[in-house]
């Protein structure tokens, strides 16, 4: 327990201290909200889909969470390169608790970023349908963050260095984001795209966020939560397995 706590605390401390990282990570969501939200808004309205900013905001929250969570997980690679990982690997504690602490810490940081993006979206004119809905929305954010934080650690455990980083970015993170329905409604997309989106866990995360924040969703809420919980558990398990196999 103490191990999980101290590893969690480390992630949170590092985040709170790096002001530039916080500000930097908010740049992209702001750009997306402004450029797409205001830019495509009129087209979206004309197509009879309503307010695009409202539709987009949960998607952008999801985006900031998946980016932040996967990067936090991949912090393992830096720790491997710069030695700190060894300090935890020779410690007389189970690797499982180290991995859990890191994952939960990374997820906490990513959810905090999600909440920040929610606040920024509200500055841009977004209003959640009800304030009570914000609480379960934050829980959903944490679930999404947990899922992708474990995925990040899993990927990082398999990579030796940052060489494969671009690969992960272009073939994992970007597709997960763009094909998730974060930017467009999945209701009337071509069947092939819908199948792909249905295989993307982020689709269910964003859908659940929309349910609580704007009161509309594509999938049933139970399906969203079920998928998030199951896939999180799966990735947490796989992440722990690969993390425990790291040899330095």
């Amino acid at each position, binding site marked *: 327990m*103490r*191990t999980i*706590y*101290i590893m969690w605390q*480390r992630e949170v*401390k*590092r985040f709170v*201290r*790096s002001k*530039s*990282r916080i500000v*930097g990570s908010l740049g992209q969501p702001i750009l997306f909200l402004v450029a797409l939200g205001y830019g495509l808004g009129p087209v979206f309205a004309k197509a009879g889909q309503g307010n695009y900013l409202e539709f987009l905001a949960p998607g952008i929250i999801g985006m900031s969470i998946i980016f932040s969570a996967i990067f936090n997980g991949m912090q393992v690679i830096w720790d491997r*390169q*710069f*030695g*700190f*990982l*060894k*300090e*935890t*690997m*020779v*410690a*007389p*504690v189970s690797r499982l608790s180290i991995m859990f602490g890191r994952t939960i810490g990374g997820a906490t940081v990513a959810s905090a970023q999600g909440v920040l993006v929610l606040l920024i979206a509200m500055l841009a004119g977004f209003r959640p349908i009800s304030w009570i809905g914000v609480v379960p929305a934050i829980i959903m954010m944490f679930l999404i963050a947990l899922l992708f934080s474990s995925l990040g650690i899993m990927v990082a455990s398999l990579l*030796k*260095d*940052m*060489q494969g980083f671009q690969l992960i970015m272009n073939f994992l993170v970007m597709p997960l984001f763009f094909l998730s329905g974060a930017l467009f409604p999945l209701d009337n997309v071509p069947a092939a795209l819908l199948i792909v989106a249905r295989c993307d866990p982020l689709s269910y995360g964003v859908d659940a966020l929309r349910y609580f924040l704007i009161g509309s969703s594509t999938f049933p809420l139970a399906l969203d939560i079920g998928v998030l919980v199951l896939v999180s558990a799966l990735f947490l398990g796989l992440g722990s397995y690969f993390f425990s196999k790291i*040899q*330095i």
Partner: protein
Amino acid sequence: MATIIDVKNLTKKFGDFVAVNDISFSVEAGDIFAFLGPNGAGKSTTIKMLTTLSHPTKGTILINGFNPVTNSDAARHSFGIVFQDPSLDEDLTALENLKLHGALYGVPTDILKTRIDELLALVELSDRKNDFVKDFSGGMKRRLEIARGLLHHPKIIFLDEPTLGLDPQTRNHLWSYVQKLNEDEGITVFFTTHYMEEAERVAKRVAIIDHGTIIAQGTSEELLQQTSTSTLEEAFLKLTGNAIRDEASSSTDKMRQNHGMWRGGNRR
């Protein structure tokens, strides 16, 4: 004296490559033991196996009576280690690094505070304890790592090239700490170095490994006698030859070169 590190027929293979080939040696409790060898001789691989980071292909190891493979946590409690590369979290303060170590090793919180104060005083970093490690010099980082390695009161401390890149003043200082610890606390010291005069001056016993095999061991005097040379450096060269060993640049080195760029751009 009792044997505290006991290595029998230890072998490590990576595919067809034999990094460590059937070595046996033992270290007595309270010894200062120098483990020497040219680059790529098998030193680091051996240390990794001794410190539970890597599993032997064959052979047995006992660290303080515990097998690092089957009883890794007990073995891990028995030693502290200062790695060749710094392994501190640079974004935390000195104090936070020590607290984190204390938590990982299960040092009770009330004892932890006094121990941290004692150790920081020992390595003369008390006034810098709330500073970030990234602002420390190489010597200060090493001293902090030594303090950290001792925090859980280990029986053995492993020092893997602890003086690499340090100036003579800091090196001198560091070895006086280590010798003092060895005398006062009876802690067993196992170290590697490329500075032969250090090994000659500090070590009570020396083992030389080359091409994965131990080619000589004993006190410095015994090695000098065996090779009829006058310094350990000459003895070392006589035993291991003059050919220069090249180590392939690892991805770690490449990453380190890019590190400054990354931190500058993204983290600060």
